């Protein structure tokens, strides 16, 4: 049903990976250009605030170091999301131990999107920022992956560590919250 474009993306990623393996470093540049934005969005929607670029860089470095482990069962982007998610979890655990950072909990929902404040300029965007603050972290993550990155529920489930059914529910709940807010 879906994914003519998705298959094309996967094919392009596979070509670029093969080129990088054969020594073409420009292929790495194109891979980073294709996926860095999505990884940055995922980092923000997961509550990362200050070190988004470092996190994205670490994700790519780790991915390229273990590209032989990428079997193509999922898309390259989903695989990158999975790596980034693990890195995020590691960081959150470290932060929890050090007590230097706020823990990422559901009740922190309103504070997690503060990093977007400076980026949201006009009134519409300000309104949407306010909407985002009403979503739970999982709703926001699923909504971002579905709306901004166009991932399928299956890919979202792999990325966010949930099930396809739960991802669908989170998406529709998030959409309902957005609509209710805009109707107010």
């Amino acid at each position, binding site marked *: *049903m*879906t*994914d*003519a*474009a*998705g298959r094309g993306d996967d094919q392009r990623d596979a070509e670029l990976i093969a080129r*990088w*393996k*054969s*020594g073409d*470093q420009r292929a*790495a*540049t194109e891979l*980073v*250009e294709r996926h*860095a*934005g999505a*990884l*940055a*969005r995922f*980092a*923000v929607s997961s509550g990362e605030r200050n070190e*988004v*670029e470092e996190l*994205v*860089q670490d994700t*790519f*470095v780790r991915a*390229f*170091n273990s*590209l*032989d482990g990428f079997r193509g069962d999922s898309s390259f982007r989903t695989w990158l999301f999975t790596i980034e998610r693990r890195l995020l979890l590691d960081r959150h655990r470290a932060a929890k131990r050090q007590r230097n950072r706020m823990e990422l909990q559901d009740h922190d929902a309103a504070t997690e999107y503060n*990093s*977007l404040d400076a*980026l*949201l300029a006009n009134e*519409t*965007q300000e309104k*949407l*920022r306010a909407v985002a603050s009403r979503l739970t972290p999982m709703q926001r993550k699923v*909504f*971002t992956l*579905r*709306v*901004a*990155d*166009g991932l*399928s529920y299956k890919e979202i489930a792999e990325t966010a560590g949930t099930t396809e059914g739960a991802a*669908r529910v989170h998406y*529709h709940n998030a*959409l309902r919250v*957005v*609509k209710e807010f*805009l*109707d107010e």
Partner: protein
Amino acid sequence: MNDCPNADFRDQLPDLLHERLDATSRARVVAHVDGCAACRDELALLRRMNDTLLFATPRIDVARIVLAIPHASAVARGRRSWRSWRVAAAVTILTIGGVSVAVLRRNAPIDRPIDTSRFSSAAHSESLLASIAESARTASPMSVLPAAPTPESAPGLAMTGRLGELTEAELKALLDDIEKLEAVPMVDPEPVGMTVTPSRSLLPTGV
């Protein structure tokens, strides 16, 4: 904002937005959206949200990240080095393990079932006696005794292992077997040059 009652079409609106539908599905969804105000509104909302989220994405310095990415050859070298270490470790472990097993097997008593058939010689003894008697009747003086049984012809006494490797029970069984053999009347080989003269009664008449 109203919701379209058709959940299937609503579910596919993000896929339409990102052009992730195949041609058939896309045509169906587009046809539905054209006639459904609720889906049109929802699609417009999704587009706005998408734009906002893309706009809000932190800027990433691609060049800096690419500089941090290793070259494929360096990654492969690192992997080969790691692989050779793993091979070396595996060989070491196997060697140590093999030596340990050998030492243990040499020192520890082996508790294995005894194959008494290896040592049973009663049947063999009978056949040996029959063979001797037959030889005494027919053979030349030089061949009173039958040829010494080879391990193949006398598997009962064939010892393939070393005595030191036998358990106490195996040794006992072996000694019992030897005792049985000694109980059998011995037929010592005659000195060379001696002739065995058969009894007259056994000679054919006229000799």
